[in-house]
């Protein structure tokens, strides 16, 4: 990481992510009509090696949905989960009489991310008086390592150690999980901190 952030800054960021994530969790819960639990946001500077040791190995096959954020604080949201888990989440969204084939499942997941991200952004833009828009979500099924490195690089985060900002959502007790990563474009966290006054 090029610049270490102060504890106060990270606490403020955590609070913003917490508020956005809380709204996102509520919106998923309303959609699937089942309780959804959310962890406290994880904000941690990790090397790629640590990411693949602590979060998921690089050869794990995941489904991932990427939404870009445009406006005052550009960046991206990356929604990631193991294929089986995300397919279970999609199934909860679909009516029972609709066959959950691959295309339908992926479409449901993209819609889910659309809803999560917009619930998140609505809460945060009101709180901070920001203009933020989300792009159409794109989905892929691939290796966790390929996806994570590419997404951070595409946002101009070139350091060996990256600041992981993520939330985890749990469904069906704790059996099904997914993660939402917030990936700010390089130097945009500073902008957010300025807006937060920290």
């Amino acid at each position, binding site marked *: 990481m090029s610049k270490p952030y102060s504890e106060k800054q990270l606490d403020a960021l955590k609070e913003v992510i917490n508020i956005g994530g809380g709204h996102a969790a509520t919106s998923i819960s309303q959609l699937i009509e089942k309780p959804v639990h959310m962890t406290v946001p994880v904000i941690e500077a990790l090397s*790629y*090696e640590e990411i693949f040791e602590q979060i998921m190995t*690089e*050869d794990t*096959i995941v489904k991932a949905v*990427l939404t*870009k954020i445009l406006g005052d604080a*550009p960046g991206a949201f990356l929604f990631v989960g193991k294929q089986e888990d995300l397919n279970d989440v999609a199934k909860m969204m679909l009516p029972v009489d609709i066959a959950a084939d691959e295309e339908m499942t992926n479409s449901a997941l993209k819609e889910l991310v659309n809803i999560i991200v917009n619930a998140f952004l609505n809460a945060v833009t009101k709180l901070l008086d920001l203009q933020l828009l989300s*792009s159409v979500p*794109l989905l*892929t*099924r*691939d*290796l*966790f*390592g*390929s*996806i*994570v*490195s*590419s*997404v951070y*690089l*595409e*946002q*101009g985060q*070139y350091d*060996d150690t990256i600041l992981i900002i993520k939330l985890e959502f749990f469904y069906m007790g704790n059996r099904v999980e997914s993660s939402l990563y917030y990936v700010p*474009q*390089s130097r945009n966290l500073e902008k957010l901190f300025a807006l937060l006054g920290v």
Partner: protein
Amino acid sequence: MAEEIKVKISDYHITQPPNLLMTIGLGSCIGIALYEPKTKIGGLSHIMLPDSRAFKEATKHEKFADLAIPQMAAEIKALSGQARLVAKIAGGASMFQFTTETPAGNIGARNAAAVKQCLQELNIPLLGEHTGGNSGRTMTVDLATFEVTVRMVNREIIVL
């Protein structure tokens, strides 16, 4: 005993048969296999970025195409006592295809262009490549034959 040596992101490794070299999860990154055919000494590099010159503190040589490739080539030449190397590369994908440009541009394509230019400057012939597209890749190098295997999720295996 043959060993499968795993090359991490922003790193490279040099060895000889019967060992295999592999790197997992290439996205926009590129895996560069360099090989000296007489001694069968070879290396595999997993670069993240094309050009170190845009950075003030490019301390980690293994991360950049323009620093990692010449350094690995020099080490293989010194170990083998031979001057002529060959190369095969894989990676440089764009994992999500957006129509709008990112600040980084298409980093996968830029990585591929930088790697090829670097190989050309070093006079190292590129014998095979599998680059671009939207899929992550895992690359394995068999140093006995310099056969490079590229695996992608849900796709047939490519042998370079």
